[in-house]
C-alpha cells in the first residue's frame, strides 16, 4: 500500500469487497498495489468525516470509475448538537445564545434572523439605531465568512497563500467584532427587541479603519487568485449548476446568483432597513466554481459599501425597545470583574424598589411571554436564505425553533455538481458550496 502512516489500518475483507485505508501517497501506486484480477476499476471511496478537504466533519461517499465520479453522496450528522431541541427548554432571550452557535461563521446572521422572528411574534419594532447597527455587524460578519470560504477553499485546492491571506484578513474581522460586541464569535449581541448593549464610544473610528484596511487588501485577492491560471483551471467549468437545478434543489445565495438569478433578500425582501442602503447584487452567469469565487470577492466589496453607509447613518439613540416587559431590566456596565448588571441598577432594586426587584427577577428567570402563533423570518446569510420558523404557544419558551440553514440545503447540490466529473473536482465543488457543518447538522 502507498500509505505512509504506520498507524493506518491494514486492508481488510468485507462482504462488499476489500477495504483499503488511504491517508496519502500516490494514486497510481495505490492502484498498482490492488491486484488486478479482482478489481474492475469501480471503487467506492469514503472521504471523511475527518478529512482536511471536506470542509468540516462531512463524509463523502464517492463511487469511482477510474478517476471519474459516477455517484456521489454526502453523509452528515456528525456535528448534530440538538440546538433546536435545546431552545425549547430556554427562554426566548436565552435562545440567542444557542442559535448563534449553529452556523459559527455567520453568528450574527443567526442572531438577527432569530430575533427578527421573535420580534415579528411580539409585533414590536426595534429602534432605528439598533436596526442599523445590526446591518453593519452583519456585513462585517459577511466579509469574515466569505474570507474563510476563500481561505479554506484555497487550502483545499492547494493555494496555501490564499489561506494565509484569507485568515489574516479574517483576523481583522474578528478583532473588530470583539471590539464592538465583546466576543470574537458566538456574540449573543443581537437580542429580541434590539441589542444587548450599545457600541463602545469610538466604534466609528475602528470600523472605518477596518474598511480602509480591507480596501487596501481586497485587491490582493485579485492579484493572487483571480487571474491566476492554475486557480482558473481548477475552478472554471467545474461544479456547474444552472438556475433550474438550483431552484429544484433549493440552492440560494452565491450558488443561485452564480447561475444568473439576482435573488438577494436584502434587495427583494428588505429587512432591518436594508431598503435604505445603496448596493449592487453581483451576479455571474457561468454557474461554476469560478463564478462563485468571483461573486464572493465582489460581495465583500459591496459589504464594505454598506458598512460605510451604515457608519454615516447610525445616529445616537436607544438600542432596545422601550417596552420594559421585553427589554433586559439592567443596564449592563463594565465593572472590576467584567461586564454585568450596573451597580446603579443593583442599588436601585436592592435598596429602593421592591417592584423593580420583582420585575428584574421575573424577566430574567422566567423571560417574557410571546403571544401564540408562528412566523417564518429569513435573512440573506453569506450562504443563502437563513430562515427561522418559530412557534409560540403563549408561554415564555418556544414550542419549536426550526432553522432552515442554507448550508444544509445547498449541500444537497453536491451530487448534481460533481457526478460525472473528476475526484479532484468534487473538492472544488464542495469548497464552492461552502457548507458550514455546524449549520448543516445543528
Amino acid at each position, binding site marked *: 500500500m502507498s500509505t505512509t502512516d504506520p498507524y493506518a489500518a491494514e486492508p481488510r475483507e468485507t462482504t462488499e469487497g476489500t477495504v483499503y485505508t488511504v491517508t496519502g501517497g500516490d494514486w497510481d501506486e495505490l492502484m498498482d498495489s490492488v491486484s488486478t484480477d479482482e478489481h474492475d476499476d469501480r471503487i467506492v471511496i469514503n472521504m471523511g468525516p475527518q478529512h482536511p478537504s471536506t470542509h468540516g466533519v462531512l463524509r463523502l461517499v464517492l463511487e469511482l470509475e477510474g478517476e471519474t465520479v459516477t455517484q456521489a453522496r454526502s453523509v452528515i450528522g456528525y456535528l448534530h448538537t440538538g440546538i433546536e431541541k435545546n431552545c425549547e427548554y430556554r427562554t426566548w432571550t436565552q435562545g440567542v445564545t444557542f442559535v448563534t452557535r449553529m452556523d459559527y461563521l455567520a453568528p450574527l446572521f443567526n442572531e438577527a434572523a432569530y430575533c427578527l422572528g421573535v420580534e415579528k411574534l411580539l*409585533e414590536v419594532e426595534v429602534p432605528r439605531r439598533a436596526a442599523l447597527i445590526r446591518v453593519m455587524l452583519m456585513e462585517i460578519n459577511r466579509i469574515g465568512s466569505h474570507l474563510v470560504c476563500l481561505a479554506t477553499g484555497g487550502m483545499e485546492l492547494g493555494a496555501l497563500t490564499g489561506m494565509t491571506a484569507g485568515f489574516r484578513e479574517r483576523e481583522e474581522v474578528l478583532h473588530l467584532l470583539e471590539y464592538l460586541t465583546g466576543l470574537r464569535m458566538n456574540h449573543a449581541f443581537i437580542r429580541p427587541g434590539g441589542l444587548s448593549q450599545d457600541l463602545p464610544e469610538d466604534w466609528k473610528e475602528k470600523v472605518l479603519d477596518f474598511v480602509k484596511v480591507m480596501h487596501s487588501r481586497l485587491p490582493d485577492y485579485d492579484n493572487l487568485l483571480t487571474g491566476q491560471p492554475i486557480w482558473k483551471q481548477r475552478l472554471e467549468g467545474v461544479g456547474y449548476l444552472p438556475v433550474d437545478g438550483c431552484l429544484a434543489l433549493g440552492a440560494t445565495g452565491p450558488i443561485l446568483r452564480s447561475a444568473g438569478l439576482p435573488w438577494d433578500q436584502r434587495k427583494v*425582501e428588505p429587512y432591518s432597513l436594508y431598503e435604505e442602503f445603496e448596493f449592487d447584487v453581483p451576479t455571474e452567469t457561468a454557474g461554476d466554481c469560478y463564478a462563485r469565487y468571483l461573486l464572493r470577492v465582489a460581495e465583500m466589496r459591496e459589504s464594505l459599501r454598506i458598512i460605510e453607509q451604515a457608519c454615516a447613518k447610525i445616529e445616537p439613540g436607544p438600542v432596545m425597545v422601550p417596552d420594559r416587559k421585553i427589554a433586559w431590566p439592567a443596564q449592563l456596565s463594565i465593572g472590576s470583574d467584567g461586564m454585568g448588571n450596573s451597580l446603579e441598577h443593583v442599588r436601585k432594586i436592592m435598596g429602593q424598589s421592591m417592584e423593580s426587584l420583582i420585575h428584574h427577577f421575573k424577566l430574567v428567570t422566567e423571560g417574557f411571554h410571546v*403571544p401564540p402563533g408562528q412566523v417564518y423570518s*429569513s435573512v440573506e446569510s453569506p450562504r443563502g436564505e437563513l430562515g427561522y420558523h418559530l*412557534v409560540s404557544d403563549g408561554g415564555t419558551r418556544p414550542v419549536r425553533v426550526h432553522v432552515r440553514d442554507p448550508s444544509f440545503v445547498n449541500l444537497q447540490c453536491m451530487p448534481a455538481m460533481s457526478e460525472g466529473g473528476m475526484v479532484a473536482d468534487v473538492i472544488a465543488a464542495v469548497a464552492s458550496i461552502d457548507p458550514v457543518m455546524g449549520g448543516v447538522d445543528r
Partner: protein
Amino acid sequence: MTEPTGTSKDREEPTGGAQSSAEASGAATEKQRAAGGEAPESGEVEQATETAAAPEGGTRLAPTRERSGMFGVRGSGDTSGFGGLRLPGYAPAPAERPYGGWFDQLADDLAEALEGRGVARSAVRQITIDRGEITFYVERERIEEVCRTLRDSPELRFELLSGVSGVDYTAPDGAAVHQPLHVVYQLLSMTWRRRIRLEVALDPADARLPSVVGVYPTADWHERETWDMFGVVFEGHPALTRILMPDDWEGHPQRKDYPLGGIPVEYKGAEIPPPDERRAYS
C-alpha cells in the same frame, strides 16, 4: 402580550373560580386532565375531524394544550392561588374575507387552479392569516397535488420550497391534543415575491403523508430530517433514512414525549436533572 405578572387576575378565567381553595382547584385540574386523556374532548375534536364538503376556512383546527398555573409549580402546596389559573389552548383562527393585500387573490387563484386540476376544494381545510403570513392547512392526502398546483400554475408559481419541518404540539404534561403532529412547508414564489406556508396536521399513531420530493427535489433532506426528528413517514420518498441521528438510533428526538437525559456529575453521584425536570419559572 407580555402582561405584568401581578395583573394575571384580569385574564378570562378568574383564579380559583368555583373551587374553594387553591389546593382543591389544582386537584380538579388534574382530574379534568385525566378525563380528557381518555374521552375525546367534546366540541373541538369533532369539528376538527369533520372535514367533508367544507368551504375554505370551514373546519377549525383543534387547539393546542391548555396552559395552567404560574411559576411552573406542579403538585406542591400552592398558597398564591395562581396554581388554579387556566389559560385556554391556542388554536389558529380561520381568516375572514377580505384577507387584505395579495392574500385574497392568491386564495382565489389557488382554489381555481385546484379545481382546474380536479382536486377537491376541501383539500384546503383552513386558511389562517397571522402577523402578515398566510397559512394553508391542507388535507394530508392532497399535499402533493397542492404543492404541484402551487408550483406549476402560472398565476401562483411557487418555484422554491424553502423548507419542510415538523412541529409537535403535544402538551408536555400529557394532556390530550388532537392531531398534535404538524408538518410545515415554507414556499417561496420568486416571480411574485410571495411566501406562504402549508401545514398538515397528523395523528402520532398514524403519522404518514405523501412525499413532495417528486415536486420539489429539495424536499429530500428536509423530509429525511423530519422523519428523523419527528417520526413522520413520507410515503414515496426515494430513501427515507435518518440523516442527523445515527442509523441505529431509537426514537425521534424532537417529539415532545422523547425522554430527555440528565447529565451525571462525577462528584458524589450527583446528576443534573433533564431540562424538563429542572426547576422552571414559566
